[in-house]
């Protein structure tokens, strides 16, 4: 079990480092990094704190197999994060559509005004 927990601990550290690096380079916005940092820190703590992991495993009915409980938690966390980002992407798409339509309508009206102005000035 220890090698698996060590691997999860290392992976959590890698995720934390990656997120912090991305934040520093402005590749990810702070509000979207919080979920990843929170999940990575929680998994790091659980992978290092044996008694806590056993207690969580007990809640999930996996008292004798806390490593499986941790893997199950990772799956749940990834599912929740994916769902959260699906919602964010949907909102962004709605905003994108509305903005695209607004730009098109405004461009059309500006073009119409320009043409009218040109016609007025030439007559």
């Amino acid at each position, binding site marked *: 079990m220890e090698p698996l927990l060590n691997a999860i601990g290392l992976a959590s550290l890698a995720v934390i480092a990656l997120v912090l690096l991305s934040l520093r380079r402005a590749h990810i916005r702070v509000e979207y990094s919080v979920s990843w940092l929170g999940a990575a820190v929680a998994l790091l703590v659980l992978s290092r704190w044996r008694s806590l992991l056993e207690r969580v495993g007990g809640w999930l009915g996996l008292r004798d197999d806390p490593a499986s409980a941790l893997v199950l938690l990772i799956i749940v966390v990834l599912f929740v994060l994916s769902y959260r980002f699906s919602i964010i992407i949907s909102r962004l798409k709605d905003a*994108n*559509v509305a903005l*695209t*339509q607004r*730009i*098109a*309508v405004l*461009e*059309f*009206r500006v073009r*119409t005004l320009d*043409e*009218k102005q040109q016609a007025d000035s030439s007559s």
Partner: protein
Amino acid sequence: MTLAGGPGAVLIIVPAYNEEAAVGSVVTEIRTVVPGIPILVVDDCSEDSTITAARMMGADVLPLPYHLGLGGAVQAGYKLAFELGYEYVIRLDGDGQHDPRDIPAVLDALRSSGCEMVIGSRYLLEDSNHTSFLRSLGIRFFRLILRPILGKPVLDPTSGFVGVNRAALQVFSKSFPLEYPEIEALVVLKRRAFRFLEVPCRVRPRVAGKSTITPLKSVYFVIHVLMGVFVNILKFERRRWRR
């Protein structure tokens, strides 16, 4: 032609994506049938010369800076028509499948019936063979689904030949499905207790190009539209419970 809406004003909207071969003749035909009515081609970011072809034949063009799909393009046209104050908008496809000679019938029905939406239905004609087997199957399926939801039968729920009045225009400016909009739009109208009517219209083979409908896309279409209808019913029920 400068677009200027107002009471009783009519606008014809033609959504088009890569329709350079067909859109010019569609605009010409419309101008021949209803010479005084302005035509707005909504170009969904085509990669070909759709915009030039439409402008050359005298249509106004609303070019979208980004490809939105059919629903997004139609809604952009509805938004502009609503802002400009149009009272009636008739939409027909840019591929030449809809016969512009049916525009006066749709417009008359829109004006005289008081319905918020008029659908040009190919199934009210005796000769209605211009439909593939798959599409025909899908239409029969959705007729069954929509009958209890709408409270009355609809023969051609996937028709893109549609007229709407200002009340429907206002609703569609705010809420319109992005993909496969026709069926969901009916349910959106039902949520507002609006009425619709079907009038006969002719459907012809495409003037140019090929339909992009494949068996896989048809399955996706059915699932997507069913989800859209279901979500709209949920919104409808939530509104009823709140009252």
